């Protein structure tokens, strides 16, 4: 071994030594279960979870939602500040069923370190959940599309908060009852509005497979162009089959989503045009994220109201232009 190589070796060994020292210092402190302080903090993931937690927690807690409007929760990458918020949170609620992808690992670890962590979908009955036939256990996560499913989620929130903060349990119960009544109204409105669409036109065609629960709950056939995974691509055969379907059934409108690209939808419209059937874009639906914070569409109720009203009106059903509560932004 020559002199240069010797030097090289000593330097590298020094680096190894330094990294070993670095690894052995300053571990992240382990948290322990503690009683909730007044005005405690709740961290939530996607907007749909944030909204129901806010409704139930009322003014007793500060609710911080990590994902904003138009964010695809499958692909969301948390930043350092998000992780700090999760670590400092007194309670964490997430959606679950793998909606948050690998962030789920982080929630499990935070939970093992002592922070109460809940998946709002954890109480749903197995019979309620949709699984692809070939792959048992890999559940479709888009449960909020069926209002009845999200009502179960509200029950998880109210039960968890009442357990953790027994002093305010009655307050949470009252909030939840009021909110569940509103959701019940929303559910009836959705059933009624979508049932007013002529039977043969009760078909919802969208960009990706997010509306299966919606379809089951409100009796509307759902066809997504691409699969659940965002990596999946629609083939030419898929597009042609859908165009045949649209032309044969004279479907008047198909829909784009706020968090998914609409290039496949445009291909369908062009395909229909070439066959002499004009199908139009019936509107933009909210699938994995809600509208702008502060607007009606930025709440869970507003989001579903918007979807239901848009679909019903575009497919020839009866629904008031401003929706259930008369608060929707009028269609352009």
């Amino acid at each position, binding site marked *: 071994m020559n002199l*240069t*190589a010797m*030097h*090289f*070796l000593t*330097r*590298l060994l020094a*680096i*190894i030594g330094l*990294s*070993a020292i*670095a*690894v*052995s*210092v*300053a*571990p*992240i*402190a*382990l948290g322990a279960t503690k009683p909730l302080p007044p005005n405690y903090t709740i961290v939530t993931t996607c907007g749909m979870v944030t909204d129901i937690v806010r409704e139930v927690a009322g003014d007793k807690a500060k609710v911080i939602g990590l994902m904003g409007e138009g964010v695809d929760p*499958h*692909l969301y*990458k*948390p*930043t*350092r*500040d*998000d*992780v*700090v918020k*999760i*670590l400092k949170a007194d309670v964490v609620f997430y959606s679950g069923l*793998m909606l948050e*992808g*690998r*962030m789920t*690992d*982080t929630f499990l*670890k*935070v939970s*093992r*370190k002592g922070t109460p962590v809940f998946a709002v979908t954890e109480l749903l009955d197995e019979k309620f959940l949709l699984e*692809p036939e*070939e*792959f*048992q*256990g*890999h559940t*479709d996560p888009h449960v909020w599309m069926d209002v009845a499913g999200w009502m179960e989620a509200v029950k998880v929130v109210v039960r968890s908060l009442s357990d953790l903060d027994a002093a305010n349990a009655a307050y949470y119960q009252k909030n939840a009852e009021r909110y569940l009544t509103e959701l019940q109204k929303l559910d009836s409105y959705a059933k009624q509005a979508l049932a007013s669409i002529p039977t043969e036109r009760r078909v919802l065609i969208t960009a990706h*497979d997010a509306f299966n629960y919606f379809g089951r709950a409100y009796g509307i056939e759902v066809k997504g162009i691409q*699969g*659940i*995974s*965002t*990596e*999946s*691509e629609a*083939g030419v055969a898929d597009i042609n089959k859908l165009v045949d379907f649209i032309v044969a059934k004279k479907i008047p409108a198909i829909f784009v989503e706020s968090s998914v690209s609409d290039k496949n939808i445009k291909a369908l419209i062009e395909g229909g045009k070439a066959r002499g059937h004009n199908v139009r874009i019936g509107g933009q639906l909210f699938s994995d994220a809600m509208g702008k914070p502060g607007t009606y569409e930025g709440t869970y109720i507003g989001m579903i109201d918007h979807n239901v009203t848009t679909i019903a009106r575009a497919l020839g059903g009866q629904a008031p232009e401003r929706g259930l509560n008369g608060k929707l932004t009028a269609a352009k």
Partner: protein
Amino acid sequence: MNWSELDTWIVITGVLICAACALPGAFLMLNRQSMLGDGISHAVLPGLAIAFLLTNSREVLPMVIGAVAAGVLTAVLTQMVQRLGQVESGAALGVVFCALFALGLILIRVASDKVDLDADCVLYGSIETAVVDVGRVPRVALISGGLLLVNILLTLLFYKELRIAAFDPALATTLGFNADAIRLGLTVVASVTTVLAFESVGSILVIAMLVVPAAAASLLTHRLHWLLLFALGFAALSAVLGHIGAVTLPQTIGRWFGQSDLGATSSAAMMAVAAGGLFLVAWLVAAIRGWTKSNPVKPIETTMSPASHR
């Protein structure tokens, strides 16, 4: 900013993982295979799909095993295409990873379209969340440290062989060892490093660290051991500057535009940006040295240029 233990661990893990990638990255650059990491980030898809079809699970372990297998396959196939097809190494990699990625898309479309199975969802970790762990030391820091250690040991053990295989394969044959075998070994090690690093910190940081520190170092020196040390140094510095930048820059820049509530941005991405910044600095230093000195650092000559016997 409020520095916390979280930041300390992000920086430690970042330094370890960046250095672990920069070391094989330097040799890949000398062999003109810098884009191997980028290729692998696409080529893992069929590995994920097959692992899912065999185990019906999206847990991390089967996903990593499938991805490692696909990564090693990429390295082996690339070498084969390069040898048999007599094409340049970048072109061989292009052929292989595109074919594998397309195979992955077909597998997903045919077999598992009802399950969310993209690399972003089931494989790529993120450095910010990976350091949150139950134990005293986060698992990701141990993995990164282990990777760095193994790569340093392999470099020391095969230093002479790697150098000769990169600069003068003909001499390797004369000395009685197979340059192709060494280069295959290098790409296999680099593939495994890449996939394990993907699992820990996501794709963009890893791809950047395989390429940029080595490229920056090559502007400043043409001695191999200095090249490796510079690359390690640049990698470590990128990790430190990157994380600090991710936490402080959005606020600073936001203030210029009258927004004060901007939070931190992605640390992994800022580490890659910092590496780019360091490359720019290295280039400026090299350029100034070129103007002021009579013997500037010449570009490194590699196997692809004929007559590099010195």
